[in-house]
């Protein structure tokens, strides 16, 4: 069964919703077995690219499992993402580019923009169901306050 662009877009939107809901099991179900997740940022101070997080599926599973033990930002994240581009390579995979705004809402209810970034996603289409094979979160915002235990 062929996978449509809408299928891909829906899967990506689901990943946003799963992260918003902090439903990490459901998030990982949307990811392939070789899933790789990275957060990167360019530093104008160092004039170099930096990697701020780099995990395989096992590493992400462990990271998600530990969130409950951390003293973490007490509020919630809301993602507002727009999938700008889906490109297929004809070999059972596709690339997607999403522009993402993360909003953070304090427990008291006030919201602020937490980070601007782009998701550079690789998607595996070979099983007939789109699976997230890798995600690079390319941060535009580099000052993230106290930071976050929750991936972007």
């Amino acid at each position: 069964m062929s996978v449509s662009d809408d299928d891909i877009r829906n899967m990506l939107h689901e990943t946003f919703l799963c992260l918003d809901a902090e439903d990490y099991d459901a998030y990982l179900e949307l990811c392939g077995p070789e899933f790789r997740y990275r957060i990167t940022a360019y530093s104008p101070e160092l004039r170099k690219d930096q990697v701020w997080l780099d995990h395989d599926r096992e590493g992400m599973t462990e990271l998600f499992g530990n969130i409950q033990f951390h003293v973490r930002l007490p509020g919630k994240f809301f993602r507002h993402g727009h999938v700008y581009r889906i490109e297929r390579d004809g070999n059972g995979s596709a690339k997607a580019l999403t522009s993402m705004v993360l909003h953070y809402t304090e427990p008291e209810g006030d919201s602020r923009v937490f980070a601007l970034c782009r998701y550079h996603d690789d998607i595996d289409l070979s099983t007939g169901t789109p699976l997230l094979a890798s995600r690079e979160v390319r941060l535009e915002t580099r000052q993230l306050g106290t930071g976050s235990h929750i991936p972007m």
Partner: protein
Amino acid sequence: MSRTAQQWMETPALPGSDYVDSQIYTDPHIFEEEQKLLKRATWKLACHESEIPELYDYRTLDHAGFSIIVTRSGDGNIRAFINACSHRSATILSEPAGNAKQWMCPFHNWTYDTEGNCTSITLPEGYEEAGVCKEKAGLREVRNGMKFGLVFINLDDDAPSFDEFFGDAFETLEDVMGAEPLEVFHHHKAMMNANWKTWHETNMEFYHEFLHYVNRNIAMSHKSYFERRLKLYPYGHGTVPPMQQTYERAGLKERTDKPLPGMSPSEFRIALLYPDTCILVRTTAIRIDTTTPISPNLTLVEQRGFGIKGEPEDVRNVRVRDHNQFWGPFGRNFPEDGNAVEIVEKNLRNGAAPYGIFARHEDLKCMDDALIRTFYDEWGKYMGRPAHNPTNVTL
């Protein structure tokens, strides 16, 4: 028993060195004086030389309210200047980093070289009558000193020399950071709703390891952890003896792979440099943080991660991965410390809590508050007032 308002506000029944008045974190006048009397008179970490590897490379930063340029001048020497034009004070360089043989002030195009000489004044004839000339219009140079490639600056030309100020404070890191040239691979800034001293206190006391889920497991499971003795140095610096961690206790891999020179597997070292720089080494990676106070309750924390210059990519990747496990905006510890300082500030801001207690005396064992008491002892000397009673003072 709970306390009444009066009891709550009472001066603690402790020696003055065992507590601080919360106004040191909130009072705008004290903040201004700290910038002038303390920050501008002490040695400040500006950058690492690997951030300016080539001739004519420069970095800019803010320090104690001043914009500063650090550059590798054409003659190979590292120099620092106040980033202010001799003409009418415009900021000359606005990028955080770059490379330029000449710096041109964007306002009226006066130019400077990387040794601080003014090299041209636009339409100089107009100044002939007044005697203003480029020979007398050099930039204000700022003293600098270097250790392990870390460039420190001091705005006070009369302050103690770099060597006198730091003395032996780097000794615990000599075999680790002095063996081979280092390179910064991580740099990030984080604006904290907190006073700069509250942030640095998290570096100076180990009592708060209870905050960190990971540290509770990997550090405190060792009896030797509690037995280590803090070492204090003149001018307010401190170190903590090396110790072993057990990462497995938090479900993490032991750090046996690619240790830095001098580091044994899962070893941890710490050096605290007065007034606001902390160096942490966890076997494979180095973190250094320093602060730029913006206002009494706003602080820019700047954090760097280091590896060895020119090391193979696979080795660097291990360092980056291990660095990010604890540090950086997505590390296990960094957000927890950030959270802690912000919940303190929330109560300090409006005077809800009048004092902070640093009264742990354990013969310099690691949860002794001695490093903080030393810090505030020095603070008192620079500020001409004790931290426990900072407003009742006649200067």
